[in-house]
């Protein structure tokens, strides 16, 4: 699982670190980290609903912020718990663009072990950076 939750970051919130060898995989891992904050076991999501989102932003970390905000938005507006099936990131021109195919299903309180509601993706110490062969993201969620 290419993400971990950090114990000694913002006290009342949730901070995660995600990593991957490409930006596409990094963004998909970050979507999982957001959903996993709300749902104990990602494997309990059946891939029955599908939605596509397109976001644009500059710099790169705000692009990830906007994508994750879509995941939080769809949780409340459609009641969906989502994972990223496919992410495409275009960084050639400004602003950067990301397109994601999100799959999942509506919250089912009998089957889904829910944890904490994510209120928002904060900008606090938000980072997306490349170190050697890996991309890393640090994100703090308000819960």
């Amino acid at each position, binding site marked *: 699982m290419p993400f971990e939750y*950090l114990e000694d970051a913002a006290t*009342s919130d949730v901070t995660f670190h995600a990593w991957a060898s490409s930006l596409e995989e990094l963004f998909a891992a970050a979507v999982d980290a957001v959903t996993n904050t709300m749902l104990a076991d990602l494997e309990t999501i059946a891939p029955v609903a599908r939605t596509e989102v397109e976001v644009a932003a500059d710099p790169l970390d705000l692009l990830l912020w906007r994508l994750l905000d879509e995941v939080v938005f769809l949780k409340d507006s459609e009641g969906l718990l989502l994972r990223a099936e496919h992410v495409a990131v275009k960084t050639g021109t400004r602003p950067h663009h990301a397109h994601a195919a999100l799959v999942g299903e509506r919250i089912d309180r009998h089957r889904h072990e829910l944890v904490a509601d994510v209120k928002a993706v904060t900008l606090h110490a938000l980072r997306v950076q490349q170190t050697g062969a890996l991309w890393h993201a640090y994100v703090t969620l308000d819960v």
Partner: protein
Amino acid sequence: MPPPDTVYPVADAIWEIAPTWRQGMRVPIRIFASHELLLAMDDAVFTQAANVARLPGIVGASCVMPDAHWGYGFPIGGVAAMDPTVGVISPGGIGFDINCGMRLVTTSLTLDEVMPRLHELVDSLCERVPAGVGCEGFVSLSDSEFGDVLRDGARWAVRRGYGTEEDLARTEEGGCLPGADPTTVSARAIKRGHHQIGTLGSGNHYLEVQVARREHVFDPAVAAALGIDRPNQVAVMFHCGSRGFGHQVATDSLQVFLEAMPRYGLEIVDRELACAPFHSPEGQRYFAAMQCAANMSFANRQVILHRIREVFGAVFRRSPTDLGLRTVYDVAHNTAKLETHVVDGAARQLLVHRKGATRAFGPGSPGLPPEYAAVGQPVIIGGSMETGSYLLTGLPGSVQTFGSTAHGSGRTMSRTRAKKLFRGRELQRSMEARGIYVRTASYAGLAEEAGGAYKDIDAVVAATEAASLTHRVVRFTPIGNVKG
């Protein structure tokens, strides 16, 4: 890590860090805490308070409450008053959960009367007040009706039959901020939250059945004036905010402010402190949208009270009026409001940001219900679910914090660590053994809220009293809890 060496005491339970501590600070940092609480604060609190002290237009001091902890942008437990003519408004100084707050409701029942039906009562509350991730309310609204909620707040709820005029009179600002303009909010925010009225949410949001034990009524005369007038009286306290609607209003504004800041020559060290001049079009638009979110939260708490009344009525087979289900007060702790405060002897209009800080006006302050004018504004402080909560009143000394005090016990441990240390089901059993019956939407979420993850509520409240901000009236002990 200890606080900086430059912190010095200025009065009992009040400390200061001079503006020379960090470059660009316009005012000092003033910390309201006992020595022990000061030593236990995360070092990030001081850095964040210094960042707040750099914001244009800040007046007096960047204030830190005794329950302060590391937040995003502002510390949680931070107060900053801005001169609206030259200063900024910052969503990070309010929080994503706009107008999140507390409501306290009395009953005429005593512990002995409630105990035989406690499980039935809590189970029924759990069923009737939706909680947890993505929960939806029972009120179905058209877009135009949701606009009425945003404009009228708790007044809308009372018009719909979900409460009384007395509830409104005993809510901060009468449950309706006057500057709310629904045309300033995005379709996205409405889509996210229009179906969530009457829901608790999750995280640290909860609904508790509590008892005011005889030995925990510290000021019987003031307690009686606030409706706590019999031994072992049972009360209901709940904590929640503006739900997905408010969260989206705040998120939308960050994006707008980040883009606008270069135009106003504003530079900040943390993007969570994104801000705009209060009088700029962006600042005014956010202020109007923020007041819509505040009104949504007042309406939300009013509808939840309606449900609580229904449940008590059904369980005890008496009318809610007969059961004495009356609002003591409803007060928010995540807001920015235009208020008049005296600074250096002169009355000035200020934009007071309170993030994890409760308004705490002293006796005789304008806007208090007449029955509370002599005792001061009721302040409701929620502790951790295992320990207890407080009813306080604002003191004249709260002028030092622009009429503000603490809001809770304040976390000392991250959620991720708490989840490793505590187990939800074990915690539920151990709480039941101590006389607290808990129902939760999430056992993992319950573990995150374990009492051990919080500061000592008694120490926090004692510090607010030592600093002359608020006066202890009653301490409540939980007996039943619905945790979001």
